[in-house]
């Protein structure tokens, strides 16, 4: 057992209000500069839809992530040999149009304009060519189902469903999917890099592109099935979400999580067994990857694990955080949070609680939980295609548990009694539901984000105290 620490995130899609506040401070702080115009380390997509870049989920087009080849893992885009052959032409690289051609406006003209026949108005101009342009796509082109009739058929999560049904006014559904780098346990971007510039940090699992070592081959860009590594045209290097490590190291959560006014995000640490990554990623069927992935997550409350972790040098403050970890509770303990497209086999570490939705038709007994899930507007199949490689059982469990929290609490509040039967049916008890309710509904900042500050490592911190920040110059 090789115990590693991963800082992970859970997003509760049942609470996401699609506001995009998460994206803005991220953009302002990290990608608000030349070369990074089109980059959104964090973006929000509306589902159904094809997203940013277009159809990123469709690996038949983009060839990101891993495939299973006779029981062993292969990069979908091909191995080292193929890369070496194609090193100056990467056929799988998304084009700028698939992201979107970034634009701007000559704002100053409104003020400087001489007197004209017509009132001045600004056309969008390409930030690449400087020429006026007609906008064709953007980082959130499909907001709130905009243009769905055109893009909906291209959403692969409609697999095994007739998408046409859901593209009609009375049958539509929607929810939002905020996306950032998954900081995978088995990152295809790292594996794809010919320069070895990408790496996963030992202490927290954050995946980074070394800005000094990157040579701009861009295989990470195509290799990532989530399309969350970007190429900076100005520096000639790849950049990606850094999970706000400068904040994390100080015990602060990421900017996207801090800014989340829907309060849907949870950030904390997970322990996992690094020795079993390959085994999990190689699970025989796509549907097996999620359970295998769960299986290598370790319980920090297990004395055996705790002892081993201590032996392997995991600091006490990190272990304390792992025990209080909200993401561990949501992912492993209650199985409410599920991974995004586990069939990509990268073992992603940003997980999602699936959303409830309005019921399509009223029944005489609307409280009947089982059928309730199937009467919701969002088809379970759709969510399963998104989160569990098509396996509906985990999605159903999560939705039923969410429903059970609501029913239990309603009975308690309105009828002034407890109804443990509701909980029995979904394998929860009163204490669990109270904890779950607290985490879902009222958890304050300090409970949504449980992060250790950087552990005290070497003994020279006393010296560093006076010297830090001066760098090499002094």
């Amino acid at each position, binding site marked *: 057992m090789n115990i590693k620490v991963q800082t992970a995130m859970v997003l509760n899609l049942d609470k996401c209000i699609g506001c995009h*506040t998460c994206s803005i401070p991220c953009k*302002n702080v990290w990608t608000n500069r030349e070369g990074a115009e089109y980059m959104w380390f964090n973006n929000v997509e509306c589902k159904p839809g094809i997203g940013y870049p277009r159809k990123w989920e469709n690996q038949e087009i983009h060839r990101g992530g891993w495939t299973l080849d006779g029981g062993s893992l292969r990069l979908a885009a091909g191995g080292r040999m193929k890369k070496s052959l194609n090193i100056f032409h990467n056929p799988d690289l998304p084009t700028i149009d698939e992201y979107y051609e970034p634009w701007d406006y000559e*704002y100053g003209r409104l003020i400087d304009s001489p007197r004209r026949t017509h009132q001045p108005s600004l056309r969008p101009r390409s930030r690449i060519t400087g020429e006026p342009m007609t906008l064709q796509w953007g980082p959130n082109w499909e907001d709130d189902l905009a243009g769905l009739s055109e893009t909906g058929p291209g959403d692969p999560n409609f697999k095994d469903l007739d998408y046409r049904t859901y593209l009609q006014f009375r049958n539509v559904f929607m929810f939002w999917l905020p996306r950032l780098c998954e900081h995978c346990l088995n990152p295809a971007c790292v594996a794809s890099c010919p320069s070895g510039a990408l790496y996963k940090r030992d202490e927290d699992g954050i995946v980074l592109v070394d800005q000094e070592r990157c040579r701009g081959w861009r295989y990470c860009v195509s290799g990532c099935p989530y399309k969350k590594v970007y190429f900076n045209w100005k520096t000639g290097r790849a950049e990606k979400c850094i999970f706000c*490590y400068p904040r994390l190291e100080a015990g602060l959560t990421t900017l996207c999580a801090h800014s989340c006014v829907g309060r849907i995000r949870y950030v904390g640490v997970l322990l996992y067994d690094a020795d079993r990554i390959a085994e999990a990623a190689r699970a025989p069927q796509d549907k097996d990857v999620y359970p295998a992935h769960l299986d290598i997550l370790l319980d920090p409350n297990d004395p055996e694990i705790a002892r081993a972790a201590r032996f392997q040098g995991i600091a006490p403050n990190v272990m304390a955080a792992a025990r209080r970890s909200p993401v561990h509770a949501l992912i492993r303990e209650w199985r409410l949070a599920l991974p995004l497209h586990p069939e990509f086999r990268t073992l992603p570490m940003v997980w999602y609680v699936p959303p409830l*939705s309005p019921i399509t038709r009223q029944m005489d007994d609307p409280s009947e939980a089982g059928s309730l899930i199937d009467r919701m507007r969002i088809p379970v199949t759709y969510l399963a295609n998104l989160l569990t490689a098509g396996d509906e059982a985990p999605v159903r469990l999560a939705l039923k548990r969410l429903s059970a929290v*609501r029913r239990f609490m309603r009975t308690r509040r309105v009828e002034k009694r407890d109804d443990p039967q509701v909980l029995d049916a979904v394998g929860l008890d009163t204490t669990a539901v109270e904890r779950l309710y607290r985490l879902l509904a009222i958890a304050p900042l300090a409970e949504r984000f449980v992060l250790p500050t950087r552990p005290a490592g070497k003994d020279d911190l006393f010296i560093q105290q006076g010297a830090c920040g001066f760098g090499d110059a002094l």
Partner: protein
Amino acid sequence: MDKFLNRLRFFRRKASATGCREERSADQWTETQCGRREWEDLYRRRWQYDKKVRSTHGVNCTGSCSWDVYVKDGILVWETQAVDYPDCGEGFPNHEPRGCPRGATYSWYTYSPVRLKHPLIRSCLLQMWRKAIAIHDDPVSAWASIVEDEAKRADFHKARGKGGFVRVDWDQAAVIIAAALIHTIKKHGPDRIFGFSPIPAMSMVCYASGARFLSLIGAAMISFYDWYCDLPPASPQIWGEQTDVPESADWYEATYFIVWGTNLPMTRTPDAHFYTEARYRGARVAAVAPDYAEYVKFADTWLPAKAGTDAALAMAMTHVIVKEFYIDRQVPYFMDYARQFTDLPFAVVLEPGADFETAGRFLRAADLGLDVNNAQWKTVVYDAAGKCFAVPNGSIGFRWNEEGRWNLRLEEDDHGIDPLLSFADQADGWRTVAFPVFAETGAGVKKGLVPYKTVAGPKGELRVTTVFDLMAAHLGVTHKNAPTVSEDYPAGYDDPKPFTPTWQEAVTGVPAADAVRTAREFAENAEKTRGKSMIFLGAGTNHWFHSDMIYRTIINLTTLCGCQGVNGGGWAHYVGQEKVRPQAAWSQVAFGLDWQRPPRQQNGTSFYYFATDQWRYDTLRPETVLSPLSGRPAATHMADYNAVAARLGWLPSYPQFDQNPIELVREAVAGGAVTDAEITAHVVEKLKKGALGFAVEDPDHPANFPRVLFLWRANLLGASGKGHEYFLKHLLGADHAVLNTDGELRPEEIRWREPAPEGKLDLLVTLEQRMSTSAMYADIALPAAGWYEMHDLNTTDMHPFIHPFNPAIDPPWETRTNWEQFKIIAEKFSALAEDHLGTIRDLVATPLMHDTPDEIAQAEVLDWRRGECEPVPGKTLPNLTVVTRNYADTYRMMTALGPLAETAGVGAKGVVWKAVQEVPALKAALGTAAAHGVSRGRPAMDTGKQAAETILMLAPETNGETAVKAWAALEKRTGLSLRHLSLSRRGERFRFDDLTAQPRKIITSPIWSGIESEERRYSPFVINIEEKVPFRTLTGRAQFYQDHPWMRDFGEQLPVYRPPLEMTGRAPEGVKREPEREMVLNYLTPHSKWSIHSTYSDTLIMLTLFRGGEAIWINDEDARGIDVRDNDWLECFNANGVVMAKAVVSPRIPPGKAFMYHAQERLINTPGSKITEKRGGTHNSVTRILVKPTHMIGGYAQLSYGFNYYGPVGAQRDESIIVRKAGKVDWYEY
């Protein structure tokens, strides 16, 4: 070389060789790296910053979120949400974080090229000015020489909106403005000068800056809440309260929600989590929405009611609730609530008719022959205990000229009474009563049976019934012991007669079963929780012509179920609502009440209706919206109603008269008048003789034009200017796209002039942070400081905190805070006024105000002009006050607190106290004014921060001692013990820097209807319900029933469904129609996801996050019908104008509707229109407002004027547009 090789993976040395652990996993593909990570400092350095400052955004969103603003290397770099609000209480989610994507974008503006950095003036105007000043030497004469020359005037009017700005220095800009003001005051009167700035709560000192200056010079501030159509007139009608709503944390108390036309995730972004989280606490959610809106995503049930038909659904739900919870079964909680807190038991006189009777006015003490104070204003119930009619405490007659019985104790003369809700069990008989029914096909009459009792009074016998009995009969719900049944009553819920669930299905499209189920769930939940059922409502249900009726029908449900005044229950109105929490103190500062009273305050809708000549195009005939049971309409044109309202003192009306008010006083004095009373008498006599007219009766006469308009914190032309093209044409005289012709209707009370004037305003000044549409059309654009560059205060009704703006950087370039901007204008003005104006006397006309004794002035509608009564100021006529103004003192007055706060008092909503302790404390805290003259020794208010401190000191909400003092005033009036509500916080006094340390929770005060405390969240009307302080209405209770004669004329005594007007509009002039490629859609303009009104709409980030410019959502099937695909250009037009926008095609939108997020600037991505051969306009280019006469009622209890409180709302939602594919577009870049 080694370094280079190291960087290529295949040549790198093994980690073991460098002495650190490097691991691989997953078939050797994944690696954990060690060493060589110094580069990581790159991103760390980016995150490092020099300081973090607490500020916020003064934008019209009511979010009131506290933000941390970061400065790095002297540059303002970004912002993040503050998360340190005081706790909401145990077991509640907190307000952290608060913020939205728009607010997070604000720093973009700071250095953006769209920012106004220097004062700008249109070059042609500057040239005229330079020539004029060279000749005249005196700025006032110079200005006169420009604006009195029609050719020059037209020349710079035509340049409006066309670019051509040049820089001018601050002094010069201020002198030009001051000259224009002085010229206007001299020639036309101060009441021809206007200021428009909305939503003070969001940056109250900024609002106060201009409002204080303008009020001191006698100019009028224009209201916004009613103009925006965000004011729900239903609220003053029902409760006598402008609006009061639960803070968002109180949503968490609710266990049943109906979200009804308010898009919480989009427009209440920072609060929406309480909505989503309450579901985990067990709340059920029903969403009523015409489209699959964002809030529907969180609902359990979606009720897709056709837009504008919501009242039909609410009527059916009311039908179910009254039948099942009031008649079939009587829920004790509902009955108790109804008897104590609503007008349901109050007696209403049945007006006799030939075949049937109609619902008349409330029975009054006077009808019983009682000789008591205000007998016309005391309403009556039947006391089941005493078996007689009784006059319970609390009606408005108890509020004025007496003390101690204005309360909701169920008492008459100190003995308890038990009001009878229905006469059904004790009827003297039953009568048939006719009610109006409105349908798209036209109005009809519906009959019902009511039990009555007979009352003998001085004028003979009257038959009376209760409001409840009328309501049941109106709904078609039979009393168990009714002797017979009207044939108009439905047989059951399946009967399609009004107002059954099946009837509503045909109107709204919502399945009847869903309507029944939702009504039952709502009421059952309220029964079990004692009122914790809540209805959110907002713009989607409020922006219609009949918004008040939609709201009244919906609010019915909450009041019937005892939800109002209950934590977790009642209405939650969220559109444009705001809360200047320290309102009384702020008003004192903002309107210069500390120096002079009364200020001029104009209702926005009437102002713009006349100033932009939209009244000339009004084709809505009053008779088409009248009750079929009423006779001839009181007027033939909607504008006539407004003229009547002005002369009866119901509505303000500035310009006041067709004569300069200063001249009017001079004339009176010349004629021998000495005292103020004599001056006033002179004016009344002149009015009576017809020698003096109201300006509103001749709005197109040049003498009655508004002349100078200031816009700050406001983008009138790019956001709220409904009827945008009429603004351009008539108010500004600029290029426009009006395709309309004068309506065929002619008013009787108003003079019609030909041709209609174009270009009424002499000067439009915009004080702005950025080049907005308003700045583009202004003559002078002054650069304002940003929100991270000033001191100010911010509050909202969404949370209980007050928190500050602080400057993270000084205002850059030549920008100045609004406070400093108006100071320099005041300084130049005062200096010029010394010679030009000196001390003058101004005659100020003000309407009969709510919360003053004037609100019981007119028990009957009598028109002095028609000889029905004498013109008496303050009774049958507006109040007339002579105000002395020493104009040279304006600057000194503006920058110090005047004496009236101690002597005349501070107050609001009828509660007044004297700031005797607070003023000395202010002197000690802030120092005193040093300048010689009127302000010397007064508390200094030189800076914006001092103005903020003054507000904090004077306000009961931020000064505990003052709160206790304020309660004492209300205790006296009500006879109740109330000060306990604030005693625990008596010792608290907030200073500005305390707020910077942490936002503070407001102290409970009598200005508001809810309780602020650690134990509970703010919920409106809790003080009315728990403490028995009356609602400020006729009966003192929540009123289902409205008995004013105009209400009866329009058939709106009881809430009822009124269909949307379905304005297909007039044929646009000169447009060749092509029906095969056109489509007519109802045009809805909801709030935007990517801006707060127009703010942020032009930022690159927001434009990038959607479609980069103006866009209109349409349904996919509709789009296919005219061959439109997503992202095609659309040309949308009607007689009002043209808007060009990108098509957003989505099956989320219902067929037949077009949604355009409002307030997208026409300065961005707006091509030309082939129809007009001009640039496409804004979302408001295709709108025109409609006014509703019932909103103009005044001098009648809760239906009395208040600024931003009551008055006609600028409704535009019943409009339709014609939509075409535009194909290739032209950009007109010349």
